[in-house]
């Protein structure tokens, strides 16, 4: 069936089977493999995307249900020049990336939080990441990266920050 929606800020149209998830649509039909496939039951957060600005597990979203909606994947999160944005740079600088598999989901979850809370507490950051599993870092550096980004954006409003 034909599915029209906004993908990473651009309108797209794709002919896909009705029985696939948004995760499969992104990876298999758009070849956007930054969104990771892992548990496929909504436990790990590796497949996180922003759906109308809200965090969602793309493995649990029906692909046709995004008709007319706004989807942002990790490929849609970047600085104006196409390089890493402030949050992604802070992930690197704080040592928040080890094997890297969970990081697209972590960055998406971080952006979902920063879109609604400009200065979250560390507890709020941990709660926002509660559905994203990382088996390498122990989370501290990831929390540090999001906290540092929040402080940076509070000082200097970020051009990519979405206002809800």
């Amino acid at each position, binding site marked *: 069936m034909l599915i029209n929606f906004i993908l990473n800020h651009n309108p797209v149209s794709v002919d896909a089977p*009705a*029985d696939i998830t948004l995760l499969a649509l992104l990876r298999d039909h758009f070849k956007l493999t930054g969104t990771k496939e892992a548990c496929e039951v909504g436990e790990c957060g590796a497949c*996180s995307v922003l*759906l109308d600005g*809200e965090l*969602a597990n793309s493995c649990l979203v029906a692909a046709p*249900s995004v008709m007319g909606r706004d989807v942002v994947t990790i490929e849609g999160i970047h600085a104006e020049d196409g390089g890493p944005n402030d949050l992604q740079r802070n992930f690197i600088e704080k040592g928040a990336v080890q094997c890297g598999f969970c990081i697209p989901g972590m960055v998406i979850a971080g952006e979902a939080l920063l879109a609604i809370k400009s200065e979250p507490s560390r507890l709020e950051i941990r709660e*926002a990441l*509660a*559905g994203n599993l990382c088996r390498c870092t122990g989370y501290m550096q990831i929390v540090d990266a999001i906290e540092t980004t929040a402080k940076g954006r509070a000082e200097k409003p970020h051009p990519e920050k979405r206002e809800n």
Partner: protein
Amino acid sequence: MAKYDYVLAKSLDHAVELLNESGIRSIPLAGGTDIYVAIRVNPVWFDRLVDIRRIPELNKVSLDKDQVKFGAAVTFSHAIKNPILLKVAPFLVEACKTIGGPAVRNCGTFGGNVSNAAACADSLPSLVCLEAVAHLCSPKGQRQVKVENLVKGPHETQIETGELLTHFTFQVPPKNAKSCFIKIGRRKAQSISRLSIAVIGAVNPAGMVDYIRVCPGAAVATPVRFPQVEAVLLGKKPNKESITAASEQLVADMIQSTGRRWSTEYKEITLKAIAERSLTKIFLEDGHHVN
């Protein structure tokens, strides 16, 4: 060849019509957080998903006089931010906060949680305490069933094929009522309840309990109130002794219902502890708290 089809329902009538189209086994789809997990382990048992998430009246929470009404497609994230539910049923909001993680709460709905009817479903104990009524719609008309009766067993409800769970209603509890929800899981987020409990109660001006509802989750086959436990407290001044007696009654009633099982050794200690903790919270402390 797709294993099943998908169709977006444009209105309530459209959804009911689609669910009853002959020759096509259709089931409603809301958040998808249970369906997509289920079809990974079970063979697909339907021909078509009828997406009900965008039907406006299924997404509303409203207060009319003393009655709260909320749509089956209201998400847990929506509930957590809703001022009506926060004011009249804080323990229901607390229960919603313990479900999954943020992404699951953004998609998961009350209608899905109730119709999936897992023994450990986290919104159910509070809904049972509130004596919430589920409203079902089909071509035959509307019918109403108390949530406590709607759930017949683990993953089993009275909802018939072609019937759509549209919304829930409940009477606003007494103004002085205090409530509490406690969940025991293996970690704070993304965990299935090992046990949970919802309690709501109030005392009259003389300090005697005149309103009490107790419903544990994941303790017996379905979430139900325990009248014998409520009777221990009703009409008495709540104190440490009566709370302990009520908690022991709850454990005895649970064992009577389930028999002694491999998990009983754990559950009898834990259920007593969370019953005491929640009842203490509402009667001897400030209520409205969780965990």
